[in-house]
C-alpha cells in the first residue's frame, strides 16, 4: 500500500541554516533513506527546490490556461519534499513519518496514494 509522506516546511527556516546544519540535516535524510531501503519500503522521493523558482499553470476555463511565476499559493508553508513508502498499513506509514528528519516548524502529511 503506497503512502506519501509530504514534508511541509517553512522555507525561510531552511534558508537560515548554516552550511554545517544543512550538511547535518542532509546526512540525516541519507540515513533515513538507508533505513527505508533496508526495510524494503522505500518508494520514489524528491527534494523540491524553493517555491520562488516555481511556475504554476492555472486552468481558468476549459482550454484557458495561464502560466504564473511562483507557487500555487504564496503561503508561509510550502512543500519541501516527499517520500513514498510501500507499507502494510497507515500505522506503519505514520511510524516512518515520525522518523523523518525535520526542523521544529515542519509538518509531515501522510496520505495514501490512489
Amino acid at each position, binding site marked *: 500500500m503506497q503512502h506519501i509522506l509530504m514534508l*511541509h516546511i517553512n522555507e525561510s527556516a531552511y534558508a537560515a541554516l548554516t552550511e554545517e546544519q544543512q550538511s547535518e540535516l542532509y546526512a540525516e535524510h541519507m540515513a533515513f533513506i538507508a533505513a527505508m531501503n533496508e526495510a524494503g519500503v522505500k518508494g520514489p522521493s*524528491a527534494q*523540491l*527546490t524553493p517555491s520562488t523558482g516555481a511556475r504554476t*499553470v*492555472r486552468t481558468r476555463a476549459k482550454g484557458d490556461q495561464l*502560466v504564473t511565476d511562483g507557487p500555487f499559493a504564496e503561503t508561509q508553508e510550502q512543500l519541501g519534499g516527499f517520500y513514498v513508502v510501500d507499507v502494510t498499513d497507515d500505522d506503519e506509514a505514520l511510524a516512518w513519518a515520525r522518523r523523518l528528519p525535520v526542523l521544529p516548524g515542519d509538518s*509531515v502529511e501522510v496520505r495514501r*496514494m*490512489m
Partner: protein
Amino acid sequence: MRYAFLLYGDEVGAAALRAEDRAELARRHRELAGALDRTGALVAGGLLRPGATATTLWPASGRLTDGPSSGGQLGAVYLVDCADLDEALLVARRFPCSPGLSVEVRPARAA
C-alpha cells in the same frame, strides 16, 4: 532535469463531480501517466487520496491531526524528467482538467 508537478484543485468542486466524471478523470490521469512512462519520462507519481483522509504529524509537539497540513487542495504529485522548463510546462498543460486545476512545476532533486 527532474521536475515535480503538484496538482492543486478545487476539492469542493471535485467532490461535486458525478461518479462517472471522477472515474473518467482518474482514467485520463492513468492514461497520461502511461504515456509519460512509455517515453521513459515518468519517474513516479499519481493521484492522492483526498485531503480529508490525510493525517498530519507535527514533530515539534508530536501531535497528530486529522486532515492535511495546509489547504488540502493537493490532489496529485508527479515526478517527470523533462529537457527543460519549457518542456515541463508543456507536460503541465497535458494534465486532465479537474475543477479549478492548477499545476505547480518545480525543479526537483532526486533523493
